[in-house]
């Protein structure tokens, strides 16, 4: 049992993350990872944040939300508008915070009435919410309606994105591996039983929902500051589905799965880029196939554990 934050496990992870980051940076500087691939990497980083956030909502708490892209767009537009006015680091920070604030309010307003709904109904309601957000943004002047915003200062960079992505995964893992996470998992397993065990299900469902929404907001802000241009249709139902596919593929409830799936699908997407429509067809077929053949996704419930990996290696060494 870990007794403090300075545990062997956390030390191992820190080393791993720093090593990974250094490796990628070196590859980029040596131009082995060229500009084209760098963009893909950035997109993967953003999707990781979206995926783990959605996994907390759907995979861990069992609330089927189809409007995730709506929160991403709130974060994206808030940040974009802010950094167009103040193209500095301070502006960037402010933009992210404003996005978080607005998202928090909207997520809370949405959560309280809709999380009463179950299963399919919740899915459709959240889909409706995502669409409402998109339509509102489409018709506001400050967001420049259908033309979207352009010339957004590209304040994002790989180190910054990597940092945010890592933080998101850590926070999500901390959420999951705590009493809060356990309560949410109980709600997913059997909401009536969880309620009977003294768990305020509304409170925890809302917590998970808002948590995921806030992560999506950050992802949106990072997206806006990476890609120079944003339009309402970038954050429509198709984007929500993209993230859902990643979460389902990786395994609903497995954060490791979400990270791996984001990577895998990012790479597959890249390879299939020249075949745009074919890619979507393959995606669709693959989605159906996964659901029919392996509904628990790639990793099911499994979570990768670094200490366990070393334990196994040590034991193997002992036997020899």
């Amino acid at each position, binding site marked *: 049992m870990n007794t403090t934050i300075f545990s062997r496990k956390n030390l191992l992870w820190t080393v791993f993350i720093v090593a990974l980051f250094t490796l990628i940076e070196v590859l980029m500087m040596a131009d082995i990872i060229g500009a084209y691939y760098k963009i893909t990497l950035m997109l993967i980083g953003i999707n990781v944040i979206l995926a783990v956030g959605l996994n907390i909502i759907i995979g861990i708490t069992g609330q089927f939300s189809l409007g995730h892209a709506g929160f991403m767009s709130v974060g994206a537009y808030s940040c974009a508008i802010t950094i167009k006015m103040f193209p500095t680091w301070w502006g960037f920070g402010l933009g992210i915070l404003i996005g978080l604030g607005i998202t928090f309010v909207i997520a809370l307003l949405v959560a309280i009435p809709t999380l009463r709904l179950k*299963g399919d109904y919740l899915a459709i309601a959240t889909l*409706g919410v995502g669409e409402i957000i998109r*339509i509102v943004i489409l018709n506001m002047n400050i967001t420049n309606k259908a033309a979207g915003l352009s010339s957004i200062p590209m304040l994002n960079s790989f180190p910054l994105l990597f940092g945010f992505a890592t933080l998101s995964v850590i926070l999500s893992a901390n959420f999951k591996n705590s009493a809060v996470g356990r309560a949410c998992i109980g709600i997913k397993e059997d909401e009536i039983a969880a309620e009977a065990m003294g768990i305020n299900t509304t409170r925890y469902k809302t917590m998970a929902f808002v948590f995921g929404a806030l992560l999506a907001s950050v992802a949106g802000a990072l997206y806006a500051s990476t890609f120079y241009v944003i339009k309402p249709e970038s954050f429509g139902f198709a984007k929500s589905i993209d993230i859902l596919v990643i979460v389902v593929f990786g395994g609903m409830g497995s954060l490791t799965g979400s990270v791996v799936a984001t990577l895998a699908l990012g790479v597959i997407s890249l390879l299939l880029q020249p075949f745009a429509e074919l890619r979507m067809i393959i995606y669709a077929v693959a989605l159906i196939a996964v659901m029919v053949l392996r509904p628990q996704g790639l990793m099911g419930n499994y979570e990768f554990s670094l200490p366990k990996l070393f334990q196994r290696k040590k034991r193997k060494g002992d036997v020899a």
Partner: protein
Amino acid sequence: MQQFLQQLINGLSLGSIYALIALGYTMVYGIIKLINFAHGDMYMIGAYIGYMGITVFHLPFFPALIFSMAFCAVLGMVIERIAYKPLRNATRIAALITAIGVSFFLEYTTMRFMGAEVKTFPAVLSDKSWIIYGLRINFQQIVIFATSIILMILLQIIVRRTKIGRAMRAVSVDADAAKLMGVDVNATISFTFAIGSALAAAAGILVGVYYNSINPLMGMAPGLKAFVAAVFGGIGIIPGAMVGGFAIGLTETMVSGYASSLYKDAVVYVLLILILLLKPSGLLGKNKKEKV
């Protein structure tokens, strides 16, 4: 007053379209508790098949309609067999995700083979319109309304007066009990998909003719709105889908006419959320609580 009546006429034809699509949603949900996300795309496929029937096989309107309905009926049954039947005992989320997959598959396959751009639907129905008491009524609107009503009446006859209709109702209530009574549940479910898809196809062609254009993504918005209509009237209840369809159609045209057409879609979604919160079982539905 005149504006109101004009909007009413427009609303009725739009409503008939939504009703036809909503019927498919409601019947499928009633029988296997699945929100068939791909249903809106069946409407699109119906329009495209009709398009091909007319341009390639040079069929006149009604044969093209029948041809498309038949094609989509079969397609619906095939999809059910391949994608939905294996998931009959899986979680609802799994089934919903599969339906989303099917939806994407239909959309992008159409894009691949027919092109992503908007296509002009040949004008096979007369464009004639009359002005009665200052109100403009289009021949096509009459065809849409009449066809929808006839199809809905046919559906009611099938559901209420035939053996297969009785089987459909039985399986909706309790599939296992129906099986024990000798009902072929698989065939009944296939049949339900066939009818639902045929109705959606009809809606698709009618819309193609009326608006003169079709595109691979035309099913998304009407699909979602028809779903709202089905929920509004009471999901799983056939008369509910008809009532809901007309209600949503009229709401949309009224909002469009009197308020702003920009927000007409948003209003429909808001309506959806309101119904789900206030009376999720819909206008004609009954409340069902989970037994603890």
